[in-house]
């Protein structure tokens, strides 16, 4: 409850900030302080201290996992703002507006990590999505940004409609919005209710797939990610997406798992399609930004493995994956933002011109590719291990590793451009501080690559 209340308040405060405070730097600092307060408030909740203690009648339930996910996502937002603050200031008139939207998104995230009711799921998703539509179109003078925003908005509304339809059908079958409400078992229920429930769940599933950009509902992703201002793409592809996954897991690891075999079959199809589309199309991209858009689809395919079933480490797996993937993606987008163009050629000779930056970029790419010694390896490792423990066949793991090997191809293209091709990198001048920020991020990934427990031990308290 703390996080929801505090993030809303902070969002409102940020909204009015731009009236009194003109300095973008001060606005950024206020946002950082706000995020810090938000993290503290959420931690306070974890250890039993509430701003208000209100009985939500089962609309929201707080688990340690959800709260911890909150903390991590807030911390990631903190890192994101800390690094990208100056870049955000370059878009639009005042960055306080955007910070305000971030806080509303975080409010949506806090709902999504704790809902126990399909209505709250719907509300959470809407609170999360609407600011994202605005952020996509934030670069008002840029036609691509506008186009992307419109496309995202239309597609997003459509999928929300499907989500609502699904929820309605489920309500029709079970008579309740609660996730914990008894589900009509496929084998014993009345025929009509079975059909309602199955249809409802399929709609729900499709809508959630849309939100996390899984194939075959991914078509909006490349255009939107490509069109949106790069800083905001970074936010969308990481924190917002991770929240979507946690919500997704929350729904489908509940009672609805009773669907059993047919559900797993559907999921397997979606996972393989997502991995296939993401990885194969990414190979052929000429723009790094678009390549990263497809790679984010491919990574979503990996994260979907967490849905495969509940095992003792599936929670760890999704948290680690979300965090590590987000750190690496925030990092690589932070580099991309400074490039004059998005092509691979822009990276030529970066290794020589900016050794520190190139090193950090290499670590980010290694992590995305899942190479040992970076956090990405353990993220993938936990995911696959959870998959096996949830009872999936070895063949699915083999499929996953084959796609992981394909992903090497397009991630390493950037490394080749940086180190092995001579040239003048098309990069804007960088303040030293920025390089050290990125280096710190890279070192964080390396530490997680040897001691992932630093992140995961908290789950055992």
């Amino acid at each position, binding site marked *: 409850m703390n996080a929801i209340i505090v993030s809303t308040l902070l969002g409102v405060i940020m909204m009015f900030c731009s009236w009194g405070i003109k300095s973008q730097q001060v606005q950024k600092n206020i946002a950082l302080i706000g995020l810090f307060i938000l993290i503290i408030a959420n931690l306070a909740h974890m250890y039993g201290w509430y701003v208000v203690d209100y009985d939500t009648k089962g609309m929201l339930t707080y688990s340690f996992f959800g709260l911890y996910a909150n903390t991590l996502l807030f911390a990631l937002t903190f890192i994101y703002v800390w690094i990208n603050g100056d870049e955000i200031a370059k878009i639009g008139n005042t960055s306080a507006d955007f910070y305000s939207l971030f806080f509303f998104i975080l409010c949506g995230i806090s709902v999504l990590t704790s809902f126990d009711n399909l209505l709250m799921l719907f509300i959470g998703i809407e609170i999360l999505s609407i600011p994202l539509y605005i952020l996509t179109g934030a670069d008002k003078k840029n036609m691509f940004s506008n186009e992307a925003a419109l496309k995202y908005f239309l597609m997003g509304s459509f999928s929300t409609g499907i989500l609502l339809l699904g929820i309605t059908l489920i309500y029709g079958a079970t008579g309740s919005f609660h996730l914990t409400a008894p589900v009509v078992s496929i084998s014993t229920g009345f025929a009509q209710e079975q059909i309602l429930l199955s249809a409802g769940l399929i709609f729900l599933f499709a809508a959630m797939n849309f939100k996390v950009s899984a194939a075959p509902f991914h078509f909006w992703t490349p255009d939107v990610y490509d069109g949106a201002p790069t800083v905001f793409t970074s936010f969308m592809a990481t924190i917002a997406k991770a929240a979507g996954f946690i919500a997704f897991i929350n729904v489908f690891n509940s009672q609805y798992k009773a669907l059993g075999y047919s559900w797993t079959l559907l999921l397997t199809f979606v996972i393989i399609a997502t991995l296939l589309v993401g990885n194969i199309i990414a190979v052929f991209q000429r723009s790094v930004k678009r390549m990263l858009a497809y790679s984010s689809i491919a990574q979503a395919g990996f994260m979907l493995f967490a849905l495969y079933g509940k095992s003792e*480490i599936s929670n*760890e797996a999704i948290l680690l994956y979300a965090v590590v993937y987000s750190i690496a993606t925030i990092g690589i987008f932070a580099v991309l933002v400074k490039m004059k163009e998005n092509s691979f050629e822009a990276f030529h000779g970066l290794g020589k011109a900016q050794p520190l930056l190139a090193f950090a970029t290499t670590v980010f790419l290694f992590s995305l590719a899942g*190479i*040992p*010694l970076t956090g990405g390896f353990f993220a993938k*490792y936990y995911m*696959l*291990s959870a998959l*096996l*423990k949830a009872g999936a066949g*070895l063949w699915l*793991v*083999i499929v996953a*590793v*084959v796609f*992981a*090997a394909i992903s*090497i*191809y397009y991630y*390493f293209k950037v490394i*080749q451009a940086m*180190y*092995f*091709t001579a040239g003048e990198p098309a990069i804007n001048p960088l303040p030293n501080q920025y390089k050290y920020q990125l280096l710190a991020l890279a070192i964080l990934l390396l530490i997680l690559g040897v*001691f*992932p*427990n630093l992140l*995961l*031990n908290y789950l055992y308290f």
Partner: protein
Amino acid sequence: MMLVSFLFLPVLAAIILLLIKNNKTAQWTAIIFSGLTLLVALQILNTPMVDFNIAWLPNLNSRFILHADGLSKILILLTAISFPAILLATANNEYKNRNVFLSLLLFTEAGLMGVFLAADGLLFYFFWELALIPIYFLCSIWGGEKRIAITFKFFIYTFLGSLFMLAGILFLNAQTSDHSFLINSFIHANLTSGEQVTAFALFFIAFAIKMPIFPLHTWQPDAYEQSPTAVTMVMSAVMVKMGLYGILRWLMPLFPAAFMAHTHVVVLLSVIGILYASFIAIRQDDIKRLIAYSSIAHIGLMNAALFTHTQIAIQGALIQLFSHGINVLGLWMVADIIEQQTGTRSMQQLGGLAKKQPTLAILLVGFALANIALPLTNSFVGEFLMFTGLFQFNPWMAACAGVSVVLAAIYTLNMVQKVAYGAISEKINTMQAPNKGAQAVLIILLIIVLATGVYPQPLFSLTADTLQELFVK
């Protein structure tokens, strides 16, 4: 603690090297640290080692365990000899950013040592990759003209292989009773015969690509040719042994039934590979490519010996792990000296080395004879044992593989004849005596070749415990 120093010393040196800009200081730092590693390696040869064992990832039940038995020791010795030797012999070669080059090389050494020491599945995988990644950068930055595409092929090939192994490790971990990665738990995992074959295949692909075995060898000759010679030496003298080591340490004890079921297929593949590589070697004009193909043939023979699962052949292979490393190191070094000084690797443009540089020619002949396993050289002992085992396993296979000895003599002696004898060619005429360091290294290596050829007993006793482990249990 001594075992940790095999990882600690090279890593420490690699980090220090990044800070040293002066070429000469960097070179000597690298040599001194790898020399220290060699001293430690000599130290552990005759002492039974205590395992180094600490918790690493408690949630996953993975431990940081280093264990050294005879098999580990002989490969550690080879690694520890190779690095200072390579660094000394190539000290005069030109590299831009030498300190980074050396630093990456020493990271590779740490990775290799880790592979040969790890007794925990996940740790093993970790080091397996750690050894590969610096090589990727070394070849791509400092390699020949076509380096980028070729190194990339090599990297994706091996990375895919090791990912399969990772899947295998994950699978085994799920099957063990205590859900750990310890090699002993893996050995006692409860597998049905079908599961054993699957896991066997996953591991075997990784090892087969690394060695490489026909038909997965296509990355190798190109990669050897395009890499800077110091890296080629590391790859062909030490890195390919990772695959053979993997078979001895992991494949054979973990999946005994699946192993026995596939002996014929694998031996057949190896024999095809041996003949295929030998025939191609005959047609080569480039010295580097010739050595590369000859190396494929030799590794294929060792792999075939392992899969005969006869005690005598495996004994031979264990010794040959070491001997082949030393021989091929010597051959590469001579080839490198010739290339550095004449600027060509084509045998047609060389000739008359014996008249111009007799010492170098003698060394070349020495290593060439070792390469064809002449009696009194080290590989004679190993190859003789391997062929004996292969004959017990299947005389036909032994006969086919035996042809390769003749072929080896053809291509190796042909090379010696073209390079060392005949009229002094234009290129050779400009040659100076190699530097003292390189000469000293080559002489020491040749002494090792002859010494272990005449008196191989120390190598036998070093590996006795491994052999017992594999056959008595």
